[in-house]
């Protein structure tokens, strides 16, 4: 259930922005949650609705973009696509992989009024 804490952090960050940038309501919110971030996107949506109630996020449309996992394989010396962390390289079967993308957990953009 740490999707709930993540949603609360999203709200906290958005509320700070609301005070700084003077807006009262968020109509649309885009999050970037990488495939390797360890976050269940469906759980995130569910928690978002709960956390958004009676807040600046109430009624906001949640858009989640999910960049795929990428890693650098030291043996193949190239970037490969991976589905999960700690999997072997699909080409050489080795475990010497350095994750290079897909672990993002960021708030990208908001449409506010």
């Amino acid at each position, binding site marked *: 259930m740490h999707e*709930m804490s993540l949603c609360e952090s999203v709200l906290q960050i958005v509320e700070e922005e609301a005070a700084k940038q003077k807006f009262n309501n968020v109509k649309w919110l885009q999050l970037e949650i990488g495939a390797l971030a*360890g976050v269940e996107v469906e759980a995130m949506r569910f928690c978002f609705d709960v*956390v958004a109630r*009676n807040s600046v996020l109430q009624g906001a449309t949640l858009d989640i973009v999910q960049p795929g996992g990428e890693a650098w394989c030291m043996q193949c010396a190239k970037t490969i696509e991976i589905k999960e962390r700690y999997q072997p390289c699909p080409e050489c079967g080795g475990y010497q992989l350095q994750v290079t993308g897909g672990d993002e*957990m960021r708030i*990208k953009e*908001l449409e506010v009024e």
Partner: protein
Amino acid sequence: MCTVCGCGEGEVTIEGAHAHSHSHDHQHSHQHGHSHDHSHEHSHDHSHDHGHHHHYGLGPARAHAPGLDQARMVQIEKDILGKNDQYARANRARFAEQGIFTLNLVSSPGSGKTTLLTRTLTDLKDKFPLAVVEGDQETSQDAERIRATGVNAIQVNTGKGCHLDGHMVGHALETLQPQPGSVLFIENVGNLVCPAAFDLGEAHKVAILSITEGEDKPIKYPDMFAAADVLLLNKIDLLPHLDFDVERCIEFARRINPAIQIIKVSAKTGEGMQQWYQWLTLNRQSRLIGHPAFADASQGETHHA
């Protein structure tokens, strides 16, 4: 709302911590000055033998920005965990300044974490100043077990939360006030998933896995074993009665984290505990190099040698 940092997190309670109260929620939103007095009175109703429980307000803080603008796009590009990382950094800075060596103990429920910790405290309490932050969803039973060893402990109840975060630990420190030069153990909520993602400002995460669990736990919950620097393989005294394959477990753990230190221990018989204390003592000393507390620490060592 919290008057120290403006927080208003739901359901978390910290014994003896400042101003958070469910019943005074309606006042928090507009009377910050009052919140301290009210919650302190309130806390006594909740108090057990040792500390007090304070409740965080219901739900996140509600900010209301003045002015109304037209619809527009705002790019913020902020890390969702950035907030927690800020609190963790503040805790880490405090630990560095005061020479406090902090370990974040993580495991599944039932790994024997509290028993291992109480034995560690009993064995080390004459060697270093010690303190404990005890995280559980509910009850202060574990903190009471810890206090029975004579070591100062504070219970943090996370309510529905599945992990401790940097913010809760920061508040716990305000009440606990560990001595400079101490070893601080943070016993995280029993959960091998979420605590991996939340930095508390610790020097090391120490994972505890008991051999009554599956040997494949490191590959089933890789994030935690990747984040930990030490793996204590507990209840090793039960090995003759179980089919647990120690070598296979170690191989799995090393596949996820080639650098992880693995120590086989039994908190019950004491087997392997000396190695764990050696690891702790040496790593604490290396952290303290250049810190005034180092001199005291070395004296302590000689004294007890």
